[in-house]
């Protein structure tokens, strides 16, 4: 009776309060460094702002300009190509490697580490090394191999058609280690009783692969597809480093949207135009991610 009115909080409520007190730190941090700038970007995309002057509100002019900018359409096509080529190539390749690596017992850990190393390598260092790989003979190792086997030299980075796949290759290679490790974890998570049952029934290796392994790997595959799609659509480091000084060249053949955003913002100081592009990229990624998550939840 005497205590009535002084303690109104239950244990549950106290816990919730403490939970929020601790959560407040990351929440406030995220709101300030993530959400606020993100929302601000939407606002800036409707202005003309060169960073040093006043922001002038210009409505949707930046978006109209984007629609009429041939370079923007070129970088959009490039970005989609990075995703459309990079995603299936890397997923299939990673799966094949993981599938066989899973069956190898001899030096398994060592081999897995070898595949993982590229993922740990700095993109800038890798970009420069690959840039030298693509040089003509006598410097470039790829052309050296081609010539050795009697093929003609290829221009690689100096060709408007070959440059994009050439820039994409190290990106696929670098991401492979991560994808392989995730695939391996997924493969290990499949209960061995399924395989034993299949073997007793005399199922072929192909049937086991298509009817047990791949369907049960579905969550892993969807996860990798979502992560890798976002990764390829946001490709930047490799392109920036391999094509330094002719950024995204030749003739914009390799320029992805993130590089165009970077140039608009930090070379041209055209902040409104740059943020308008980030908004488009954000919407693109949001749409693709929601689509993929929806597909995942279906089953």
């Amino acid at each position, binding site marked *: 009776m005497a205590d009535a009115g002084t303690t109104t909080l239950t244990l549950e409520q106290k816990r919730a309060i403490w939970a929020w007190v601790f959560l407040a730190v990351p929440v406030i941090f995220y709101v300030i460094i993530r959400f606020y700038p993100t929302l601000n970007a939407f606002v800036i995309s409707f202005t003309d702002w*060169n960073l*040093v*002057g006043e922001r002038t509100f210009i409505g949707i002019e930046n978006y109209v300009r984007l629609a009429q900018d041939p370079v923007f359409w070129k970088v959009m096509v490039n970005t989609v190509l990075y995703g459309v080529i990079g995603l299936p190539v890397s997923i299939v390749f990673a799966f094949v490697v993981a599938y066989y690596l899973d069956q190898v017992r001899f030096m398994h850990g060592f081999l897995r580490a070898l595949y993982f190393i590229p993922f740990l390598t700095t993109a800038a260092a890798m970009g420069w090394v690959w840039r030298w790989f693509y040089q003509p003979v006598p410097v470039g190792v790829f052309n050296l191999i081609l010539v050795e086997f009697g093929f003609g030299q290829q221009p690689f*980075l*100096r060709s408007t058609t070959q440059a994009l796949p050439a820039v994409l290759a190290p990106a696929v290679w670098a991401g492979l280690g991560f994808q392989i490790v995730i695939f391996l974890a997924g493969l290990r998570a499949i209960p061995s009783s399924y395989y034993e049952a299949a073997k007793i029934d005399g199922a072929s290796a192909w049937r086991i692969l298509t009817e047990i392994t791949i369907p049960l790997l579905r969550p892993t595959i969807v996860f990798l597809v979502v992560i890798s799609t976002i990764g390829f659509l946001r490709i930047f480091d490799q392109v920036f480093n391999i094509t330094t000084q*002719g950024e995204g060249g*030749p003739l914009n053949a390799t320029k992805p949207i993130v590089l165009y955003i970077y140039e608009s913002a930090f070379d*041209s*100081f055209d902040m409104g135009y740059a943020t308008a592009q980030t908004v488009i990229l954000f919407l693109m990624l949001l749409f693709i991610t929601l689509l993929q998550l929806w597909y995942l939840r279906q089953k």
Partner: protein
Amino acid sequence: MRKHLGYMTSGAVGAALMVGLAMPSQAVEIEYWQYTFGARVDAIDALIEQFEAENPDIQVTHTNFPYAEYRTKVAAAIPSGEGPDVVQLFYGWLDAYREAELLVPLPGDVFPSSEIEGDFFPMVQAMNVDGEYYGLPTAVRSLALFWNTKLFEEAGLDPSTPPQTLDELVEFAKKLTKRDDNGNLLQAGLTIAPAGQDHHWWREVLVRQFGGEPYSADGRTVTYNDEAGVKAIEFYASLLTEHQVSEIEFLTDGQTAFKAGKAGMTIDGSFRLNAFNGQRGLEYAIGELPAHEGNRFNFSSYWVNGITSKADGEKREAAAKFLAFITQPEAMQLWLDTVGELPARTEAALVPANEDNPQFGPFIKGLAYANSTHFVDEAAQRQIVIDMLDNISLKGMSAAEAVAIAAEEEQKLLDSFYGS
């Protein structure tokens, strides 16, 4: 708050003086900002030390940032009343800074226009807007031809005589080019790197040498889309397509190829001297850019010092004093000796010791006939020249068409900047 503290301290000092203690009067503090570059930092520190010794009532704080974030930080700081009182900025940024009211004109009594125009190299006049100067450089940079003396000897050329004309340049470059039996490039005769300094060479040197003007006098109209512009790019592209004295991206870029001793000649700026001097085994010499039909031109760029709108009252006075100090001839000589950039005043540059210096001499001679491009977006304008050459060399486009496309693109850039 700070100001109040300042008054309070000076009050205290005044009281202390009345009591008879010998203390210096409160020093005015000003801030100087530039980007981080070893030699520049040393040079300014040395100048600040001298300045403070001469002006004990002024204290200069020197702050520097990595180049990548420099512009952003300056832009964010000044409007909030924080940043520098005297700021170093690239000459091409002046318009944007001035329009954003980050800079105030230099006081005419300390920096009379007539004196600037009489004493400084003519390209500095680009800092004059409606009769008022907004910035002054300590140092300027120009281009020159670097050649590898060892490779000259190997090719049977006189290592002390560089090509004097464009025709000779081609002839020498061809002799210096080495390929193996399958035609693979082993050594470039002349580096071709539009992303390096070549775009300046094309724009301000070649176009003029073929009888054109790259831009109108006010810098707002592209004027190279004519016979001269076409001839200039034809000449430049012919080095690649017809004479094949190098390949774009050969050893990634011009300075790397030259540094590695795999290029006979390269065109680069005075700021490259330090890098080349530090390369063991590289023996080279420097000469003026080749002439064409007796005409020589050069390109000059520079960083200027301006006074920001943040500096007011006694700070503005102190800032002007400091700016005057770092742009006097003695400071320029110190800058040349420390950084390797050329004095911006003719009297400081054109002294025998500098003119006859085998390393600085050709650059200093080049200043006399140099022009500065009125850039609105250097990276984008450079890209236009890179694309022009790619259009010709990769797509087989005619020089005339490539120049027309470049001129149209660049005009769009200029128009959007000047808002017409």
